[in-house]
């Protein structure tokens, strides 16, 4: 039932989930060993939210997550907000035009595209904001591209895990074949 009470509950649940996701991304993951700090769990979660709930909900999540990440990281303010939103839009177009089925390969392709788009948009957005604020950009860091590659590999690994987990929980990702009677 879509009552106002249920709507409020849903909003509170979403806000809490977004906060926990940001705490995990900014606090927990960055303390882990073995290069796991490069995992961009927020981005992978956004791709799954886009696929399962649609662009509108995903946009709200992107704005919330982007705002919080801009607050708790030292990238120029706005770079996460812009790059998450543009990445979502790009991935949504890919989802609508090319990857219309819900196979594992589609998800991996979408997460790959999202990781690449996100890095490019983040670089462009923070570079652009840096130009206005007069500080050196992050692309000048020697390890930037190495870290971006590591992030892509980890994002794909986690996407596989989430895909199979979701497959285990529900039938939404299982293929359906029409049979002739």
């Amino acid at each position, binding site marked *: 039932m879509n009552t106002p009470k249920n709507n409020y509950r849903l909003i509170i649940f979403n806000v809490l989930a977004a906060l926990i996701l940001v705490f995990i991304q900014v606090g927990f993951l960055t*303390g882990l*060993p073995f290069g796991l700090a490069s995992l961009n769990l927020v981005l992978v979660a956004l791709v799954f939210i886009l696929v399962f709930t649609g*662009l509108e909900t995903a946009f709200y999540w992107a704005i919330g997550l982007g705002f919080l990440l801009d607050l708790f990281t*030292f990238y120029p*303010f706005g770079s996460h*907000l812009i790059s998450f939103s543009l990445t979502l*839009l790009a991935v949504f177009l890919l989802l609508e035009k090319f990857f219309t089925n819900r196979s594992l390969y589609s998800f991996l392709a979408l997460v790959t595209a999202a990781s690449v788009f996100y890095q490019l948009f983040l670089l462009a957005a923070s570079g652009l904001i840096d130009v206005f604020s007069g500080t050196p950009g992050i692309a000048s*860091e020697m*390890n930037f591209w190495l870290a971006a590659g590591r992030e892509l590999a980890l994002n794909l690994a986690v996407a596989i895990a989430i895909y199979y987990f979701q497959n285990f929980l529900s039938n939404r990702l299982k293929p359906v074949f029409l049979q002739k009677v």
Partner: protein
Amino acid sequence: MKNFSLRKILYFFAGIFLVILLHYFGALSPVERALERAFNPFVSGFHASGIKLRAIYDRQTSGLDLTNENQTLQSQIEQLTVEVARLRTLEEENKSLREQLDFRNKEKRQLILVNIGSRAQAGDANQTITLDRGAADGLSAGLPVVSGAGLLIGKIVETKEHLSSACLVTSSRCQFAATVENQNKTIGLTKGELGLTIKMDFIPQTEIINPGDLVVTSGLEQNVPRGLVLGKIGQVQKLDKELWQTATIEPLVNLNDLVIASVVLP
């Protein structure tokens, strides 16, 4: 775009640009400050859990070397005990001389305790840490950050109202004016290398430095006092054709396990 019109997308982006504009005009500052204050403890708590997991992992992987390490540490403790006793005598002597000369005690440093909230994500390969105190607590760019034992771990590069970002000594962005604790008190400039070690550069060819020599800050830099320990000399690279010799410094603190640190105020 079935369920989502182009107009709606434009509204979303207009909203995003409005938020960014409001931020840069300072209209969002009260909200941002409140959120930073409210959520900082959670971020630090999550980070501490991550560090605990890292410590368990590190213990498992380095368990075999513990016996050897224990023996080495025992012998170091013995040497250090002798050293501490000698230094205490010197300290007392120094104190009494200072009192006689009416010197003000400049050694007492004012420290601010900070929690490490997170390490930077992709971009500089974990060579930046976020501290849970900021400009409102008197922190500013350039101030040194030390570990609990007083060893130098980095320098603040940027501050927000209730947050600061500091580069680690092993980061290529982190430079310090340093002195080798040898006979000549050789000075040079240190810079992080590959996120693993520290390189000391601009050491004149005539200076004699040896592996094992202690390296401390020289005090020639604004806001960084003399005597903060950076590490020990590991290797010395001396080529005749070069104008300067360089040295590799090994940090004495494990920069991966940091949860709490202190900022040295000027």
